[in-house]
C-alpha cells in the first residue's frame, strides 16, 4: 500500500554525524518497530467489521443508566 511507504522515511539529517553503526542499529530498531506495528494493524484489519460506515450507522443502543 502506498500509505505504508510514507512511513519509511530516511534517518533525519541531524543524525548524520553519529557513528555509522549506531545509525544502522537505530534505524534497524525503528524499522523493526514499524514492522511490528504494521503487522499488528494488518492483523487488526483482518478482524475489523467489513463496512465501517454501515457498522457505525447501525450501532445504536437504547439509553441506560
Amino acid at each position, binding site marked *: *500500500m502506498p*500509505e*505504508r511507504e*510514507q*512511513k519509511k522515511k530516511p534517518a533525519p539529517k541531524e543524525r548524520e554525524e553519529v557513528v555509522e553503526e549506531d545509525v544502522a542499529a537505530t534505524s534497524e530498531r525503528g524499522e523493526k518497530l514499524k514492522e511490528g*506495528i*504494521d503487522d*499488528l*494493524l494488518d*492483523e*487488526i484489519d483482518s*478482524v*475489523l*467489521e467489513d463496512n*465501517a*460506515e454501515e*457498522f*457505525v450507522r*447501525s*450501532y*445504536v*443502543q*437504547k*439509553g*441506560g*443508566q
Partner: protein
Amino acid sequence: MAVPKIVGIETEYGVSLRGAPDPNPVVASSLLINGYVEQRRVGWDFEDETPGRDARGFARDGAQPPEIETHLVNAVLTNGARYYVDHAHPEYSTPECSDPMQIVRYDKAGERILARSMEASRRLLPAGQEIVVYKNNSDGKGNSYGCHENYLVDRAVPFAVLVRNLIPWFVTRQVFTGAGKVGSENGADPCDYQISQRSDFFEEEVGLETTLKRPIVNTRDEPHADPQKYRRLHVIVGDANLCEVATFLKVGTTAIVLAMIEDGFIDKDLSISSPIAAIRAVSHDPTCGATVDVAELGRCTAVELQWEFLRLGRKYADETGLVAACGTEELGTQVLDRWEAVLGALESDPSSLDGQLDWVTKLELLRAYVERDGLEWRDPKLELLSVQYHDVRPNRSLYEKLVRAGKVERLCAEDSVYAAMADPPESTRAYFRGTCLARWADSVVAANWDSLVLDVGTDPLRRIPMMEPTRGSKEHVAQLFEEVSTPRQLVERLTAS
C-alpha cells in the same frame, strides 16, 4: 471513621442482535443470560477452552434461579455476582470485593462470562443471527449506558461533605479512568477525540437521576447493608475499563479519597467552579492541558489537582495507613506508587501510558491508523475502531488483540480470572452467598445483596440476613460449612448461635 472499602462494579454492556429482522435488545440480553445459566446447569465442559482449572469443579457450580422480585431475567452466580437485564442491556454486577486487585479480577471475570454467554446464545438463535456485546458506555449517537462503582461508606459522614470533596475528584480522575472515544455527544462542543466516554452526559452536580440529566454525584441511598452504620456510595460518573491498570487505579484511588473524607483528612477547599463545564473541558483535551478553577489552588490542570490529592494520600498513608481503603498496606502502596507514576507520565508524555490506560491505548491505535491510512478524524473507520476496541468476543476484540500482541499490561493471571468466574471472593459476604449457591442450588429460593432465602424442606422459607458486608467471609463461615451438610442444618446452626 473510615470503614473497610467494600466495593463492587456494575457494568451495563452494549448489545446488538445481528441478522434479526426486528432486533430487540431486551430479548437479546435475556438470551445471553439464559444461555449462560442453562449451560452451567447442564455442566458444559470447558476443558478444552481454558487452562488451569478442573472442568468438573467449574461444571458443578450452577448459576441460580431467578430472584422473586422481578419478572426480568435475573440470575445470581456462584461467584456471588448478579447477572441480569437492566434498561435493555445485559448487566453484570461483581460480587462484593475487599480490595482494588480483587475487583480487577472479578470485573475481568465479568467480561469472560459475557463472552461465554455470546457463545452459549448461538444455540438459542436461528442460523444467521448473532448477539454481540461491547464493554463501552456510548453508541456515539447520544445514548449512554453506565459502569457504576459502589463503595461502602461510613453513614456518619454528612452527605454534603462527600459531595464537596467528590466533585473535584470525579471531574479530574478521568485522566486515568477514561476509556476514550471519537467525537462528542449530547450537545457538547465538537472534538476529534476525547478522554472519557461518559463526561458529555453529565448535566447536574448532584441528584438522584441515573438515566437523564445525570449528576456527577448520585444520591441514591440504598445501602444493601446496615443503614444505621453504612452508606453505599453509588458512583455513576466512571467509564467501563478494559485495561486492568485503569480499573485498579479507578477503584484504589477513589477508595483512598473516600477514606480520607471519612477521616476528615482533606484540609483544603478543592472545589471546582462550574463542574459541568470543567468535566467536559478536561475530557475534551487529550493533551491533559485543560485547566479548571480550584478554590484554594487557583487555575490548574486536572493532573495538578490530582497531584494535590496524591500528596494528601501519601500523608494519610503515613499517619493512618491504608488497610481500610485498600485491604492491605501493600496494596495501598501499590495504588499510591502507580498513581504517582501515571500522573508523572500524563504530564510528560501521555502516549507513554499506551497499554495501561484505555483512553491512551485506544488513541495510540487510532493514531497508527491515521498515519498509515491517511485518515481524517471524522472517518467512519476510526469510529469503528473506537467501538470495536470494546467488542467482548475474544477473536474480535481489538483490546484483546493488543493484549495478545503483548502491548497491554495485565495485573491478574488469566487462571485467577477463570477461577473468579465460579468462585466467590473469600473476604466478604459474597463467600457465604456463592457457597450456598454452589452447594445447594435447588434450596436457594432467592438471593439478594443483603439476604438469602432458603427452602429447608418445610414451611416457612427461611431468610438469612447479611447486613454486614464483611461478615460471611471464608474466615467466618468456612468451619460452619464444613460442619453442615444440608441447608436445614445450616439454618439450625445459624439460629442457635
